[in-house]
């Protein structure tokens, strides 16, 4: 599907960077939660 100017990703070159950011953030959260569990549980 052709992307118009109005549909271009903000801040990054394309939307793939946004997808990586969301997935990467989830991975970081899971790691932090694991450390949190290990520390307190």
């Amino acid at each position, binding site marked *: *599907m052709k*992307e*118009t100017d*109005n*549909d*271009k*990703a*903000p801040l990054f070159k394309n*939307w793939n960077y*946004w*997808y990586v*950011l*969301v*997935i990467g*953030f*989830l991975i970081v*959260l*899971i790691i932090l*939660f*694991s450390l*949190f*569990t290990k*520390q*307190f*549980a």
Partner: protein
Amino acid sequence: MSQLDWIVLIVTLLAIITYGLYKSRTTHNLDGYFLSNRSMPWGLVLLSIMGTQASAITFLSAPGQAYTDGMRFVQYYFGQPLALVVVCIVFVPIFRKLKVYTAYEFLENRFDNKTRSLTSFLFLMQRGLSTGISVFAPSIILSSLFGWNIYYTNILMGGLLIIYTMSGGAKAVAYTQQLQLIIIFIGMFLAAYMVVNMLPKNVSFVDALKVSGKMGKLNVITTGFENGKFNWSDQYNLLSGLIGGFFLGLSYFGADQSQVGRYLTARSLKQSRMGLLMHGLVKVPMQFLILLIGALVFTFYQFNKAPIFFNDVQIKKIERSVYKDSFAVVQQQYNAIALQKENTIVAYSLAADQKNESLQAQKLNELKMLQSGSDSLRKKVKRWIATKEVKGDNNDTNYIFLRFVVDYLPVGLVGLLIAIIFLASWGSIAAAINSLASCSMVDFHRRFTKKKESGENEYKLSKWYTLGWGIFCIIVAMFTYNIGNSLIEAVNVLGSLFYGVILGVFLVAFFMKRIKSGHVVFWAAVLAELLVLTVFILTKTGVFKMGFLWLNPIGAFGVIFFSSLLDKIIPQKQKPSPL
């Protein structure tokens, strides 16, 4: 409630209704009423998505869930960011390109009217019922706590929001959700601050976490493996959260009109995507913080005596039953343990002050043993409540946080938190009713009536459908009672019964281009739904054990499997793909 609480409650609710009505001016056609003329910026789309997903149950039940079962419930949301990425890549561009009002419209282009109607019908059924539960959930809790009549509370809860939802459609829903969420976050932040602030002065935040953690409430990540084997009946663990949660999230954001209708209001594909991706970033941390409040409330109740059961109405039922005397004895034992717990935790605090780590560990172990003693007494009371002599609801998860709010928070804040229950409830119910009306209007009325209505007439009819669904949800709420599990779980179980199949139909549409026959997909969906219902009944009757989240992949893969199978058996009529 005090006079000030009543003033805070009434002023907050009136402000929302007035704001909703003020923002309700919209174009008198379907595009204006259901999709706000596709003009919303991503910030509003994000708040609307959040407000639709986070119901009153989220704010009431989640802290209670952490109190009873620990924070592992957060894993249920792990699949969602992944699902949102897929929705942004696959679903949103197609929905926007085809300029659909409902997600199911696309299915007629891709397959046939029969498949569209079946999928839309499954959505209407599950969303209509679960919205009824969403009306009932806060009503029952408020009526139990304050002795309000449940029927009037249901009418008040559901009735007031119909005024602006019917009047302003999607635009009023989005704007009120924005204000509602701001008030909700302020209230929850204040509640969290108060829990920490009310702990004894010498107990730091980290100490509070240590106590909560030692009692098993900070089990954020669990693997689901026991003795080297995966436990399929375990509801919340990393694997079920990632896989089951992914499929549930994909169905919810890709194929549930209550969410699709939110991001289709965006002014462009970019704004839709940004709203969804931002939600993917904030949802898990937000849920973590809400659960953390529950874990901290648990610590608070180590320093202060917790009720043996948080729903007073059920306690009164026991006191009038044959278990009256036994209950009095158990209550005495419970009080004695509570006193021992208070002494132990004070000793723990002193040890913490002296930085005596071995004494700290010893006191935490003693506390753990005392907690298991009070837990077993609580279980005994719960068993009595469930007996035929008492005939009560033995689940008090939804009452824990509110009981704490009412008993311990200062005047004014109680009114604000009760208002939050109404607002959170309205946010999700308004969006649900709007989506139910849009599906009824677009997928059924418009599709099956021969007479072509004018834009103005369609607008007026849509308002009547909104009113009709609002009344339907209030009626369901009137008949909902004793669901058993926590209400947040009940809504999710209900969703899981249908979501997988709805998603499966969309997955076949998007990814199995060789399947073109609507006949094949229609019957595959019917067979898959029967499969899901059979599996659910077998787990309920105890034939085998399995967490409800797995019903989502079963439904989705069921449609894919049966479609592939039937495609080979049923001769196809060729139909060009619209994509």
